């Protein structure tokens, strides 16, 4: 505590002097300064540089050494002889990554919303030890992606407990992580396992905000539980459901860490997603193709902007609906 006071007192003269010089209201800039500097340096400046990278060629990192190349990087990414066959594309891994990401996002988000809704509904009932159960479902959210991936890698490895169970049931063991279909299944399962608690919590908060008297009225009218759910709970929960849907979508599109450690994108490129493509093109492979990676991340950015606009539109539509009601 004393150290803290000493530290803050140390900064006192700096601010006192600036206060005299700048006046009280302009002093605000000094307070937001450090934040803005960091944001400027590590968020806004990179956006500008990213566009530059995407439109320049070569393998140099320094912008000065990179000749302007227009849309060449995008052409490389998007050029295909036959758009119905990934194999004919110049960067077939890019297309595969996009396909995988779309497939992953649709399945994962659907299941994520369904399961977190179900869990939130169960947790919202009159159950014994609700705090404990809420904690149970939330715990994996706190684990790091690397830890999550290693936990499952340990269970799923060819001599792991899953295969032991199969062998005990007289079934030949399955290569869970080197069979492309199973590997894809497990990336979805593990990411739901790890993140479901977060969305459950948002939905639970929404459920608890629904006034009790609405349900009492429904009980008076002898509404069936199913009818209560579809006509009262879900419509009133809609704002939270939209938040969950969009957040889950934005996260799913950027899936990387867990999958990278769990399967490494394999077998082949069966579980390679778009962020891993960016990472590999820009950093992991022998030749660092920064321009191509930047172009791919711009493509990802466009996808994210579309999702965000979708969110805005959905929430607006919902607001309008509420006004009518």
């Amino acid at each position, binding site marked *: 505590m004393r150290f803290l006071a000493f530290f803050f007192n140390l900064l006192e003269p700096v601010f006192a002097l600036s206060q005299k010089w700048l006046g009280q209201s302009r002093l605000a800039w000094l307070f937001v300064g*450090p934040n803005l500097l960091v944001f400027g340096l590590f968020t806004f400046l990179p956006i500008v540089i990213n566009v530059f990278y995407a439109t320049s060629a070569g393998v140099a990192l320094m912008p000065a050494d990179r000749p302007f190349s227009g849309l060449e990087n995008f052409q490389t990414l998007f050029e295909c002889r036959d758009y119905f066959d990934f194999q004919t594309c110049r960067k077939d891994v890019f297309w595969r990554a996009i396909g995988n990401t779309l497939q992953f996002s649709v399945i994962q988000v659907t299941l994520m919303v369904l399961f977190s809704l179900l869990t939130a509904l169960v947790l919202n009932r009159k159950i014994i030890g609700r705090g404990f159960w809420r904690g149970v479902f939330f715990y994996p959210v706190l684990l790091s992606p690397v830890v999550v991936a290693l936990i499952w890698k340990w269970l799923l490895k060819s001599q792991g407990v899953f295969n032991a169970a199969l062998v005990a049931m007289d079934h030949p063991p399955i290569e869970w992580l080197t069979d492309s279909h199973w590997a894809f299944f497990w990336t979805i399962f593990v990411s739901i396992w790890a993140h479901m608690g977060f969305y459950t919590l948002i939905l639970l908060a929404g459920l608890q905000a629904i006034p009790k008297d609405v349900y009492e009225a429904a009980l008076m009218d002898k509404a069936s539980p199913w009818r209560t759910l579809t006509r009262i709970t879900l419509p009133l929960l809609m704002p939270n459901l939209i938040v969950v849907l969009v957040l889950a979508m934005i996260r799913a599109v950027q899936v990387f860490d867990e999958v990278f450690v769990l399967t490494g994108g394999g077998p082949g490129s069966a579980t390679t997603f778009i962020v891993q493509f960016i990472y590999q093109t820009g950093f992991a492979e022998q030749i660092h193709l920064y321009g191509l990676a930047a172009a791919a*991340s711009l493509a990802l950015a466009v996808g994210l902007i579309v999702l965000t606009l979708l969110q805005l539109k959905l929430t607006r539509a919902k607001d309008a609906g509420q006004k009518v009601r």
Partner: protein
Amino acid sequence: MLLKFLTRTRHAQRLGWTDALSYAYLVVGLFTLFAPVLWLLMSSFKTESAIGEFPPTFLPYTQRTVQVDNYPQPLPLFHVTLDDGQVKPMAQVSRIGIMATMVDPEHPQETVQVKLLQRQPVRELKFAFNNYTELFGKFAFGTYLFNSVFITVVATVLTLLFNSMAAFALSKYKFTGQKTVFLLIIATLMIPPTIVLVPIFLVINSVGLLNSLWGVILPAVATPTGVFLLRQYMLTIPDELLEAARMDHASEWRIYWRIVLPLSAPALAVLAIFSVMWRWNDFLLPLIVLSKSEFFTLQLALNSFQGELNTQWHYLLAMTVITLLPVTLVFAFLQRYITTGIASAGVK
């Protein structure tokens, strides 16, 4: 009357049925979410030989070894069924094909040839704590641990300082450009680091922070979530308090750290918990910034060890447990703050 009675019981029954289903769901959830972690924990106590066994056991059983005279190494112990039906504990000297040369620990001079089918390993429950203790000697584990702790602590302290300063200005001042600043900060929520990976690498490289712990700390200390969370909280602090302090000629800086900061303690605590979790679990940014192993964080070390061909799982599992331990402890004690904090801020 009868009809009424019947419907009533049925109604009561159905209620019980859905309750049972709810609890069943919760128990299945508990199993699915915790069994993997528990399995990892128990496996991390297995010895190197036990960890390679198939089928694996839940508890860390290991084969008992005995020290026999004339033999320098401890020998694995088996229950051997002799030809006369007698069961005797014997140690294995060597093994060729389906035959093993065994020795009775009581009579170390005589060796016996025994078929593999005739023997059963003697197993005992043994927790191999040396998986944990050896980490510090065998790998630069202390360095990884230090790097992780350093990044987490320093980044969290700076996050609290910078974000609370910005939040103070945004909530307690009226200045030109205030709205723009606020919007800019909120806009960064929409720009995840994944889409500016290459240029962030360039910036960090240009300011000379590549392969430096500060290269991971600095980009992370300004968080839109933190500013937003603190600003919302500081808005609830009455301006009269600040005015009173100004009457007493307190400087703005003093007002900030003597009045506003202590009053924002609950929000600061929530942000501190978030920040610790974010930084401790961070992966992608360290992955591109820290490429030399002496700067690895625990997450990077785990990732690089699991990628090696002959993964030494007994060490890897112990390392994983140590990595998940702090977060688990934080959660055990601060569960309520975390869950309510996330529910109210809607952020992770």
